[in-house]
């Protein structure tokens, strides 16, 4: 079974010795099957999640069909549900967050992997990763009491003064709303994109860098013309990974986005998202169809993030092979 692997590790116990090793060999078999079982459990959980959520969402799927995606009703009293405002809020806030986070994250990744002096790479890298370690609810807390008031009092009036004529900055500056949601999301996905991109860049073989440098390229030319072309698919993967994280992010968003299922062009108006409506209403959902509709929202979220993550991983794995062993 291990032909693909490291031959040096396995050769010791192939056939010729089997006659001598007796019990040990049985122990190996047992141990191997045991650990394989637990490894498989991870896959089973993922499959069970898909299955269970699909089953729980079935009543809603049957009742509303495709209309669920395009309807803007969300009325527990009349038992009529549609997901459009939530899908809109999720997609809009995530894409805006991506636009905000992307330049910063790429700049960070390039600096950390290519341009920084060697001695600052590790400490700065750890700081960026710590940004990812701070729990979502903390960003939410900070968003409520620090960021939103700041947006309301300083940023939004200014934006309105300058860009008030566009549809994006209309309405009363409230602080809470789409803009706060997408900013807090941007902060949260930034370290994901930055650190995965950095790892992808580091996986580009050194010989590529030296080849470019030896031709007299500057460091920046080396990055732009030799390293980035090698890494571009992996970086795309990192971006998709960040997008997936933004779509599913819950607490920080629900705490600042305003939680009203409106569809509006204005960044100042409140919005809602798939994850935040689930967080807000799941515990109190009375009625089977209500719960089922909420589960269907979860299923949509699950399906989309699953696909995005599969895509992202395929892209990243092609550049930077996942397991360390396969790299040698």
């Amino acid at each position, binding site marked *: 079974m291990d032909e693909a692997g490291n031959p040096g590790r396995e050769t010791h116990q192939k056939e010729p010795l089997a006659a001598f090793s007796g019990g040990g060999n049985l122990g190996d078999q047992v141990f191997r099957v045991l650990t394989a079982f637990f490894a498989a459990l991870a896959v089973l959980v993922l499959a069970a999640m898909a299955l269970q959520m699909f089953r729980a969402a079935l009543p809603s799927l049957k009742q509303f069909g495709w209309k669920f995606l395009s309807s803007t009703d969300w009325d527990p009293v009349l038992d009529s549900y549609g997901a459009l405002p939530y899908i809109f809020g999720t997609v809009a806030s995530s894409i805006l967050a991506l636009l905000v986070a992307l330049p910063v994250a790429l700049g960070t990744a390039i600096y950390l992997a290519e341009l920084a002096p060697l001695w600052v790479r590790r400490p*700065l890298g750890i700081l960026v990763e710590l940004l990812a370690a701070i729990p979502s609810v903390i960003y939410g807390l900070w968003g409520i009491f620090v960021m939103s008031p700041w947006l309301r009092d300083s940023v939004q009036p200014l934006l309105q003064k300058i860009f008030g004529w566009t549809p994006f900055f209309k309405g009363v500056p409230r602080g809470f709303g789409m803009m706060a949601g997408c900013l807090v999301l941007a902060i949260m996905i930034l370290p994901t994109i930055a650190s995965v991109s950095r790892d992808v860049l580091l996986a580009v073989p050194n010989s590529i860098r030296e080849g470019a440098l030896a031709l007299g390229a500057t460091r920046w030319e080396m990055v732009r013309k030799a390293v980035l072309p090698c890494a571009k698919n992996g970086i795309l993967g990192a971006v998709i990974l960040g997008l997936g994280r933004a779509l599913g992010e819950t607490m920080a968003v629900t705490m600042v986005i305003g939680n009203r299922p409106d569809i509006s062009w204005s960044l100042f108006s409140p919005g809602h998202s798939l994850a935040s409506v689930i967080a807000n209403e799941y515990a109190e959902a009375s009625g089977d169809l209500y719960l089922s509709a909420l589960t269907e929202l979860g299923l949509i979220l699950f399906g989309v993030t699953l696909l995005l993550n599969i895509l992202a991983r395929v892209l990243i794995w092609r550049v930077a092979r996942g397991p360390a062993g396969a790299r040698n």
Partner: protein
Amino acid sequence: MPGYFRRKTFDILARWGSLAMVMVALVPLVAVLGYLTYKGIGGISWAFFTQLPKPVGETGGGMANALSGSAILVGLAGLIGLPVGLLGAIYLAEYGDNAFGKGVRFCTDVMAGIPSITVGIFVYGLVVLRMRRFSALAGAVTLAILMLPIVMRTTEELLRLVPVTLREAGLALGLPKWRVILGVVLRTGASGIATGVMLAIARVAGETAPLLFTAFGSRFISLKLDQPMGSLPVQIYTYAVSPYEDWHRQAWAAALVLVLLVLALNLLARVITRQPGSGR
């Protein structure tokens, strides 16, 4: 030399530009940590750690319920999730260079990106609906599932750093492979395992969304696993969105405690082992 000056300028611009991006990226870190300390430090007191929440309207009280609840939830999640994750990681590191191993690895990578709230929905159907009530057990199962991909992948990567020569030394002594793994690989890789465990705990200790409808919350210290249980992050959320000044103060204090815990675990995990992939 044509364009030499221009090229040099671009090079320098790129360096400073990307450094500026790093600084921008770190602004939120500094801002969040700064505000947490500034607003949270005042709320931390003996009562905060030892007392139960006071009824609405009365000031004072503490978060003993949430602290104990978080400890129980995370501990129980560890009991369920860590053995599965560690054994799975051993498989991936030691036997996993085949199609099955690749598949598992891929699934765990994908699983790490699935929103935690959907895991909550899964466990709601699996545990909460069957038991007909929110429970600590459901919360712990949720956290255990969330731990799984982190423990598996981190531990695997770090076990792979144990040199092949050590394994071969064990095998050459006539030990069967499983004894080599348990005796040599795990002992040498102990720091790697500790790292994986700590990162996983740090990750789930701050998890909020799925707990809202699995463990729910409780204002009392309880040891009953079939009853709702409070937790630090959920209480921070509840207090933060409440209209009461005193609760806000406590939310900041709780947030400070939580962040210190999570960051300490993260830093410790990095001190113990160099993370694979960070720097050369």
